C-alpha cells in the first residue's frame, strides 16, 4: 500500500486510527513445532498454507494488511470510501471469508487456530499495530473462542445480521452460508462450508480435514485440555458432513471411542 493510499496515515503522513474489521488468530501448537526435530518441515508447510494456496496472506500490498509474529496472525479490513450504509457489512463480510479460507487452508495442512474478529478503530503500519479492535479481537481469541474456532464480536455480529436485510431470503444470504451459532450462543466461522462454495468435489478436502483432526485426537489423547479442543473440531466436522453429505459416513470422524476414561485412585 503506497503512503498516499494508506488509510492508516493522514494527509501529512502521521499515523491515524481507522475503522476496521480486525482478525486476530493464534495458531495452535506452533511453538512446539518450532522446537521439534521437524521444525524445517513444519515451517515449509506453514508457509505454503499461508502464502501459496488460496492467496498470500502476508503480501505487503494487500487490501487486507497483515502482520505475523510467532504463532499470532493479525489481518485487517479497513472500511474504505464510500463510507456510510453498508461499509461495516462489506468490511466485516469480506474479512470473514478471508478468515474462512485461511482457516480451511491451515486445517487441511494440519494447523488449527483459534481467533476473534472484531470491528472498531485500528492502526497497522510498518510493524506497529494498535487499537481497540485489536484488543477486542485478542480478548475474543483468548477468552471466548476456547475451541479451534474464529468467533465474531458483538459489533461484527451486528454488522452481519444487518447485512441480511440486503437479501430477499436471509436463509440464502452469503452470511448464512458462512456463519454458525454454537450451543453456547457464540457466532463462529463455518470454514468447512467453503468446500461446497466451488464446483470442485468437496470430499478430498473433508478427507484431509478428517485425517488432520484424527491425528490431533490421537496425539493429545492423554492431554485433556488439548484433546477437548480437537473433540470440538470432530463434532463440528461431523455436523458439516451430516448436513451436507448425509449417509457418507466414511467422511466422518469416528468418535465412538472418545468417551472419557477414568482409572481407580489405587491401581
Amino acid at each position: 500500500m503506497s503512503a498516499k493510499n494508506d488509510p492508516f496515515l493522514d494527509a501529512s503522513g502521521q499515523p491515524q486510527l481507522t475503522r476496521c474489521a480486525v482478525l486476530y488468530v493464534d495458531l495452535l501448537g506452533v511453538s512446539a513445532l518450532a522446537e521439534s526435530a521437524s521444525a524445517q518441515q513444519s515451517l515449509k508447510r506453514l508457509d505454503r498454507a499461508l502464502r501459496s494456496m488460496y492467496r498470500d496472506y502476508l503480501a505487503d500490498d494487500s487490501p487486507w494488511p497483515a502482520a505475523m509474529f510467532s504463532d499470532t496472525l493479525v489481518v485487517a479490513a479497513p472500511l474504505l470510501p464510500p463510507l456510510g450504509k453498508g461499509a461495516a457489512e462489506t468490511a466485516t463480510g469480506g474479512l470473514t471469508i478471508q478468515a474462512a479460507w485461511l482457516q480451511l487452508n491451515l486445517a487441511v495442512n494440519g494447523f488449527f487456530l483459534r481467533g476473534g474478529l472484531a470491528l472498531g478503530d485500528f492502526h497497522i503500519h510498518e510493524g506497529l499495530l494498535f487499537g481497540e479492535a485489536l484488543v477486542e479481537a485478542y480478548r475474543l481469541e483468548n477468552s471466548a473462542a476456547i475451541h479451534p474456532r474464529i468467533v465474531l464480536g458483538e459489533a461484527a455480529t451486528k454488522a452481519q445480521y444487518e447485512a441480511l436485510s440486503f437479501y430477499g431470503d436471509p436463509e440464502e444470504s452469503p452470511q448464512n452460508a458462512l456463519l454458525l451459532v454454537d450451543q453456547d450462543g457464540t457466532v463462529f466461522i463455518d470454514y468447512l462450508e467453503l468446500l461446497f462454495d466451488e464446483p470442485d468435489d468437496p470430499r478430498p478436502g473433508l478427507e484431509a480435514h478428517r485425517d488432520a483432526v484424527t491425528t490431533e485426537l490421537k496425539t493429545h489423547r492423554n492431554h485433556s485440555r488439548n484433546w477437548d479442543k480437537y473433540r470440538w473440531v470432530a463434532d463440528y466436522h461431523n455436523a458439516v458432513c451430516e448436513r451436507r453429505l448425509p449417509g457418507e459416513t466414511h467422511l466422518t470422524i469416528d468418535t465412538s471411542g472418545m468417551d472419557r476414561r477414568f482409572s481407580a485412585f489405587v491401581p
Partner: protein
Amino acid sequence: MAPIDEATLDTDTPRTMDGREYPRHLRPYSKFDEPLLKVLAANEEATFDEVARAPLDARTVAALPRWLASAQWRGLIAKHSDGSTRRRYTLTQRGRRRLRDLRR
C-alpha cells in the same frame, strides 16, 4: 474434481457431473461480472492477489472470493492449481462472450 455439466451452463442452475447445484447464495455475485471479468481479460492469467490489487472499489474487492466461486460455477473462468502453487485463474471463451455482452 467434479466438472460442470456443460449442458447446464446456460440454465439458471448449473450443476456438477455428480449432481451438486450452483449455490443460491452465490447468485447475487454476478453483478460483479463486468469489473472482474475485465481484470481477467487484461491478464492472461492471474492469482487472487493480482486481481485484488487491480483498481477496484472496496465492495468489489470484498466480493472477490465469492465472485471467483460464482464465475467458476457459471463457466466464465477456469481455475488452475497443481496443489503446490498458488491458484491462477483464466478467462474462458464463455467468460469473454459474457464480457462482450455486458459491454454492449
